[in-house]
């Protein structure tokens, strides 16, 4: 799958001028609210006709304003999971799920098998005969995802599908989206303004700022960059072993070993760790007698001063893995940090996301 977007669209005071390509897997469109993420996804889905530009999926041109080409949304085969689930209130869950089947020429057997596997993937077997009004927010979103999947899309758009849910409901749905990414084989364009979500789910990240693409690339590279919000870093790791006595898990990553509170993932499982820049301290000497368990060694790769001058993000190369530490400008000067200087990074806390 490939998605190529190059569009301009103006609406009142807002100008969207975006150009990006998405690779297979989950591509996250990341940015603050009002940065134009939803407009961009609506253009891809065919809900908005852009003022100028081109949209192509797998080489098929869906929009080309120069040639006055605009494929209507019902002929795009692009699934759309909305922020508000938009289930049809007059249809049961089962009929909501099967709605798209009326329009895709599928034989009965294949469709039945599809329904069974999607229902299983999303864990909604017990909801099939219910009416949407009686579902919880999390259940509604799972049904909405299933409904979009069963229309056999070649690309799935998800516009902040977790935004209207509380923390517990989010935790309930995230694993299903991961399974979708890994098992269903449908490429996903995922809109989010949550770093944690993007870190956990995305393969590729496209950062949108005030209607413009300011960065795009693999998730680990992009999230480490200072201008991407809170400047956290993502480390890929595997579970090396569990320490039952202290209820810890030991992870192996390119940067070194990390000890974290016991994870439920089995030994050998691949996990993705997200480390916020402000949770990293730097020391010139190997620190001794401190409570922090995780100390990684590396070299300073670059220093990005913040706009206000009081802080700076120090990028570290820890044996190939990139890590960012947010320090005060005073500390940077006091430690005489400069590219190439070896340092020790003390990590205060890590949020570990399964992947």
């Amino acid at each position: 799958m490939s998605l190529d977007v190059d569009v301009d669209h103006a609406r009142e005071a807002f100008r969207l001028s975006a150009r990006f390509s998405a690779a297979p897997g989950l591509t996250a469109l990341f940015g603050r609210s009002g940065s134009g993420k939803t407009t961009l996804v609506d253009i891809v889905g065919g809900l908005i006709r852009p003022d100028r530009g081109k949209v192509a999926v797998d080489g098929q041109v869906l929009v080309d304003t120069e040639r006055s080409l605009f494929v209507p949304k019902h002929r795009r085969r692009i699934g759309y999971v909305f922020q508000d689930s938009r289930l049809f209130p007059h249809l049961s869950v089962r009929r909501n799920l099967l709605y798209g089947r009326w329009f895709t020429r599928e034989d009965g057997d294949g469709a039945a098998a599809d329904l069974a596997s999607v229902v299983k993937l999303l864990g909604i077997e017990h909801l099939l005969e219910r009416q949407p009004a009686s579902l919880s927010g999390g259940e509604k979103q799972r049904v909405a995802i299933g409904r979009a999947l069963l229309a056999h899309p070649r690309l799935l758009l998800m516009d902040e599908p977790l935004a209207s849910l509380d923390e517990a409901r989010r935790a309930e749905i995230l694993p299903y989206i991961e399974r979708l990414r890994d098992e269903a084989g449908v490429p996903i364009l995922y809109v989010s303004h949550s770093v944690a979500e993007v870190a956990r789910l995305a393969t590729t990240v496209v950062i949108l700022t005030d209607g413009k693409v300011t960065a795009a690339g693999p998730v680990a590279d992009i999230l480490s960059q200072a201008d991407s919000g809170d400047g956290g870093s993502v480390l890929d790791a595997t579970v090396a072993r569990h320490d039952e006595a202290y209820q810890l898990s030991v992870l192996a990553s390119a940067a070194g070993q990390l000890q974290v509170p016991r994870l439920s993932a089995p030994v050998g499982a691949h996990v993705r760790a997200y480390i916020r820049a402000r949770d990293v301290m730097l020391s010139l000497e190997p620190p001794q007698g401190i409570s922090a368990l995780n100390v990684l060694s590396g070299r300073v790769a670059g220093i990005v001063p913040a706009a206000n001058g009081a802080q700076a993000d120090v990028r570290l190369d820890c044996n190939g893995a990139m890590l960012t530490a947010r320090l005060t400008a005073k500390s940077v000067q006091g430690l005489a940090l400069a590219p190439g200087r070896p340092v020790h990074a003390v990590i205060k806390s890590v949020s570990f996301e399964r992947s």
Partner: protein
Amino acid sequence: MTPEEWTAVRLSLLVATTATLASLPFGIAIAWLLARRTFWGKSLVDTLVHLPLILPPVVTGYLLLISFGRRAPIGAFLADNFGIVFSFRWTGAALACAVMGFPLLVRAIRLSIEAVDTRLESAAGTLGARPLWVFATITLPLCMPGVIAGAILCFAKAMGEFGATITFVSNIPGETQTLPSLIYTLTQVPDGDAGALRLTLVSIVISMLALLGSELLARRIGVKQMAA
């Protein structure tokens, strides 16, 4: 009740049912256009639809007479090419009732279409449904309570229509003498009071049944949509 009265009641029911059912597809189409589309001349269409509501019924009946009469332009065309004759037939009474009930029908349906969430319609579009299918499977079922309300209003209006009908197709027993026409006739003759009173009661009963029926139907649909 006399056979003459029974005939008038049957005729009225036939005329009102025909008027309602025949104008329903047009009413839904116009209501959808007014609710969902912007086009040149939209306010003109809106005004034309509402005109029978504000014009004196006799004026509407007279306009029908000079356009749908046997020798009037539209009437002659329809009679010569399709064999459809309105003047002094029960079909003419149905046409007059349909025209008079149309604004009520369109108003109710338009309001309920406007209340249907367009975001549901675009969601259906992303699932592969063509606009006509979106209308048939999403918009129409969701605005059904309004369609029923509009149809009942139209039916009630048709049952009571008098001015336009009598002007357009006169008051011919067994052909165009509807319930209100007969009540009017009975009040003009001596000893007609008892008959007029009987028909008045019949009229009240029919109206109440129609209202009750629509209420039940709308509630059943509503319950189904909101069912837990």
